């Protein structure tokens, strides 16, 4: 390989790394957490935990109706509630998939936002020494797209 071609190749590789870095920056923060925080451990496996729903609060709509379906949006309605802040928490069963539906009104239009997730229980006893159960998932983003 000639000197110039090698330089060109190195430049291309550098650009690849930059583009890869860009992809990671584009990822959501929750996707980038690879480490286990042993301070978040439960010493026993809980049956339920709080799921979190992020919603958009606007001047024209100070509350957002939420519907929780078991499984997908065609599933049985498990809970209905109203969010009055940007973060709504609800105690739910671990290991079950829920789909959240949020209803917004914008002038004459109705916007129905969906998101789905499952809370899972992970055993990190090996890494943290003591019995350690950490809950992952259970985060629903039904904020309105700008």
């Amino acid at each position, binding site marked *: 390989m*000639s000197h110039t071609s090698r330089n*060109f190749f190195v430049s291309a590789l550098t650009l690849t790394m930059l*583009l890869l870095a860009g992809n990671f920056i584009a990822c959501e923060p929750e996707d980038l957490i690879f480490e286990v925080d042993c301070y978040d451990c439960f010493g026993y496996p809980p049956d339920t935990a709080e799921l979190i729903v992020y919603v958009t609060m606007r001047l024209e709509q100070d509350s957002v109706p939420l519907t929780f379906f078991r499984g997908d949006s065609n599933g049985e309605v498990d809970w209905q509630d109203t969010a009055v802040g940007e973060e709504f928490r609800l105690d739910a069963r671990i290991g079950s998939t829920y789909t959240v539906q949020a209803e917004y009104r914008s002038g004459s239009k109705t*916007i129905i936002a969906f998101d789905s997730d499952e809370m899972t229980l992970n055993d990190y006893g090996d890494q943290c020494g003591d019995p350690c159960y950490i809950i992952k998932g259970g985060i629903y983003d039904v904020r*309105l797209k700008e």
Partner: protein
Amino acid sequence: MDKRISRSFLPALFLGLFLFSVWSWDICAQSNSLDILSDTSYFKNGKDDWNLVESVKRIQPANVLFLLKRGADPNASEEGGITALMYAAQMGDTLLIKLLVLNGADLELTSVENTTPLMVAVLNQQFGAAHLLLKREANPDHQDKYGGTSIIYASAMNDYAMADLLLFFGATDSLKDLNGNDAMMTAVSLGHLETADVLLQNGIYPDNRDKKQRTPLMVAAQQGNIEMLNLLLENGAEKELTDYRNYTPLAHAIRSEEKNVARVLVDSGANVNHFISRSQNMYDLARKGENQDISKILKTEGAEPSPRPDFSEFGLGWGNSFGKSEHMMQGRIWWMDQKFGFFAETGFDIRPVIRTVQVEINDTLIHQYRETRSAWTHGAGKYFTLIRAPMGIEFGVYAGIYGMLSFPKRRGISENPGAEYNVLPSAGLFLRGKVAGIKAGTERYIFGIVNEGPWKTNITIFLRIPYNNSTYEYKEIGYEPY
């Protein structure tokens, strides 16, 4: 007595007597030297075989004769199977050789490398020793562990007198080593003009081929050795023979960018329109190598580019397509025509993160989903090179048309919308070297999402992988004495 006879006879008689006295003195001197032992302090008791080899190495013929008479094995050898006779041949000491041979040394005993005493003499350019061994009927065609023969050795050493001697004693010139190189190929590959000349004068066929079907003329062309080329051409070397890649000598000259060799071959009538492959002729090869001088030489002889595209390169690309609210990551593989710049491409696209998308259901209802998307893309296009810089750097524009079959998946929705097919026009700029490149441009596609901008920016980096005629192998022969 006739006075004329007596006048011519007397000087001849005196000359004869003089020569006889000199010969007698030499014989006496030799027999005296053989009678008197040299230093024997290195002798080991009870190890006369070892002592014999050591005496030969120290060039002490009296000691050698003494040991042979005392019963030392004339075929004694050292580690590696190197016999006393090989050492004598290496040093070119004909007296030692005679002593050993007359006392029963085997001329055909070989070392671990399967070399004979004759080969050792040839490798060490000991003409007298080789001559003596050949007169004693040493086999001139013995092949070593690597298939090398004495005449190949002589060619490798450019010892044309030795080559001539070996041929005189019946050496077979067409024997080849394990790489298919005979004496002629060896001489040409190593640029040994004198030996090549002697071999050709002895009537050696100039077009014997190596394992890759290369002829000496091809090698001379590759090396740009004009003198060798002319010698071979004068001796009837064939200009249109082809090797395993269908290269003629002229193709080798083009590929090696040997302008002067190309000129000689073209002037001697080499075919400038030979096709190396279905899509590549001589002119294409010169143009691909960016050698304008050779291209001109060929063009003046009527050569023209072949009209067929030359799909002989793969490309591997990794790109990102960004829009107002979209980001698709792309992996691509394409098949590239190196001659005209056409390409056919396929690959996959994935959205690297879950994205929030809105879809208009009707005038009053919008659904918002968290969506992932993957796609299979395929298409074709063309690169237009505008600037060719040195070292194979090219700059230009590209244009293509693609089809994208994408598969959206929305979280929590059981009835996903199914596959969507989009047609994507795409165009932009590229900069590429021989190994890698980058292209940046724009492409148009829509996924039917609210507020989606149809035009996306695309940046792709790629590797170029030529798979045909990409690497050019120079012939090399390496010889090391045993």
